């Protein structure tokens, strides 16, 4: 298009202003190099952690049965990965996580939408939500177990109570921080009522909402693990059941192997939210402004 409008000073100015600037170039490396650049610090951190663990193990301040080294634990983990039991347990636990988080997502979003929309609800319910958020979810278990009995519902109940407040708060904060100028622009355009919500307020609050989801997930995962240790249901295997069995049998290598599984699952889901969050920021030009171009 530069050719057809080359005599137009405005287009010329546009091209000059959009030309790559020296400061920005090195920040935008190829995706391949970027991925590699992001991976090696993580590998280094894992190596470091294993190294420290090995050193403590070799120091011999505890017997190898009570504190096994990385080699024993990783071998145990590998062994467990050959059996269906571990995968069944992971399946059960993840299923609970998905159902619980899904319920929290629905309930949190509905509550958040209502509270952000209706002013009288705001003062009362708003602070209640924040209060719920600070309450350790494990404190709900006695209530949940008496109320629901020793079953999955008790676990799901506590997951929802752990995650929904964060999700609701994320949505409320996002709606609150919709830039007033964009609201004015939207109203000038003729966006009203539901259309204003759909085309302006919801997209504007998306980054804050995703941050709320991420926090909600962290709470949900913690609640789930606590729940599976406390609410043991006969005949079902879950990660919590495996961990609890290891404790009873004083099987430290297996317990530590399961802990690694928990850690990896938590990190993987967190990374998923991180990817969504970064994609949103990049699309809106928020990532680059942080780099200071």
């Amino acid at each position: 298009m530069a050719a057809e409008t080359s005599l137009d000073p405005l287009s010329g100015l546009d091209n000059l202003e959009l030309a790559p600037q020296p400061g920005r170039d090195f920040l935008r490396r190829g995706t391949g190099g970027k991925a590699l650049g992001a991976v090696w610090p993580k590998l280094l951190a894992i190596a470091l952690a294993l190294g420290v663990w090995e050193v403590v193990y070799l120091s011999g301040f505890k017997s190898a049965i009570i504190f096994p080294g990385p080699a024993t634990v990783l071998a145990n983990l590998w062994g467990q990965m050959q059996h269906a039991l571990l995968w069944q347990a992971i399946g059960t636990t993840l299923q609970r996580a998905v159902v619980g988080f899904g319920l929290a997502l629905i309930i949190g979003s509905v509550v958040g939408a209502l509270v952000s929309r209706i002013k009288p609800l705001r003062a009362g319910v708003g602070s209640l939500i924040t209060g719920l958020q600070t309450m350790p979810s494990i404190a709900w278990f006695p209530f949940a177990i008496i109320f629901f009995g020793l079953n999955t519902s008790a676990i799901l109940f506590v997951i929802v109570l752990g995650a929904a407040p964060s999700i609701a708060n994320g949505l409320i904060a996002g709606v609150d921080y919709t830039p007033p100028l964009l609201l004015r622009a939207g109203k000038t355009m003729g966006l009203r009522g539901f259309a204003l919500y759909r085309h302006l307020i919801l997209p504007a609050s998306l980054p804050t909402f995703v941050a709320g989801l991420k926090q909600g997930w962290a709470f949900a995962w913690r609640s789930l693990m606590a729940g599976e240790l406390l609410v043991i249901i006969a005949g079902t295997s879950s990660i919590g059941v495996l961990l609890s069995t290891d404790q009873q049998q004083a099987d430290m290598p297996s317990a530590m192997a399961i802990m690694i599984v928990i850690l990896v699952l938590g990190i993987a889901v967190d990374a998923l939210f991180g990817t969504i969050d970064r994609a949103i920021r990049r699309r809106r030009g928020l990532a680059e402004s942080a780099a200071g171009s």
Partner: protein
Amino acid sequence: MSVTQRGVAPPQASGPPAPGSPPSSDVSRSSASTRGAGTTAVRLTEVSKVYGKGRSSLLALDKVSLAVRPGEFVCLIGASGCGKSTMLSLVAGLDSATAGEVATGGKRVTLMFQEPALFPWLTSSRNVELALRARGVPKQERRARAAELLQTVHLGGFGGKRPHELSGGMRQRVALARALAQDADVLLMDEPFGALDAMTRDLLHEELERICGERELTVLFVTHNVREAARLGDRVIVLSSRPGRVIEEIPVGIERPRRMDSPQIAELGAHMTDRLREEMASHGR
């Protein structure tokens, strides 16, 4: 100038207004059928605006009367606190007057700000398409119409770019395309080029002049730059501060095309600066 034809509106005859009905019959917002007709696009009659109540209340506008002809380019100039932005909000219908009447004769009005206020999650094209959608343009037409509008502001190839990928001047042109998408007859502009560098602003003046001419837009343009007012306006309204009142009306007779750096613009600008300084000096004590 026919600024203050006060108390004109005669009791409105029942039934649809005849084509040859007197010009003052199109002043109320309700008579949408007279769109594009008549001699006034925007009329403010003794408009006052008070913010707050009781002791802390602030009189922002004091009995301001103003009539803008269709196709006319009127610049509003004044020091801070002259209620320029308040006036635009009233005309845009985002706020209502405390006293007096604001009439746009059923004409469509749109507002542009100093910031482009584009939606950062949408591409340029989608930003324009959303305005078309809000107006009820069918889906299959929107893409093509948006492309046309972007072409109008010389951004034909940039429909797929997001706002943060464009320069400040380009964003402001997307905002102009979005305003044009609203198919308004009256364009209200609140210091739209205030944040741009002088060179970009000069080029955008030419663009705006061309587009307004082609589309016969009526423009109310707020600025604090006296030369910009002299460069663009068919008429310049000088406002006092706290409260805002019309203190002078200057018809600008300088022939177009005009240049910011021409001696006539400089002279007229100097006159406005003097008036504004007098006005500011009166607030010195």
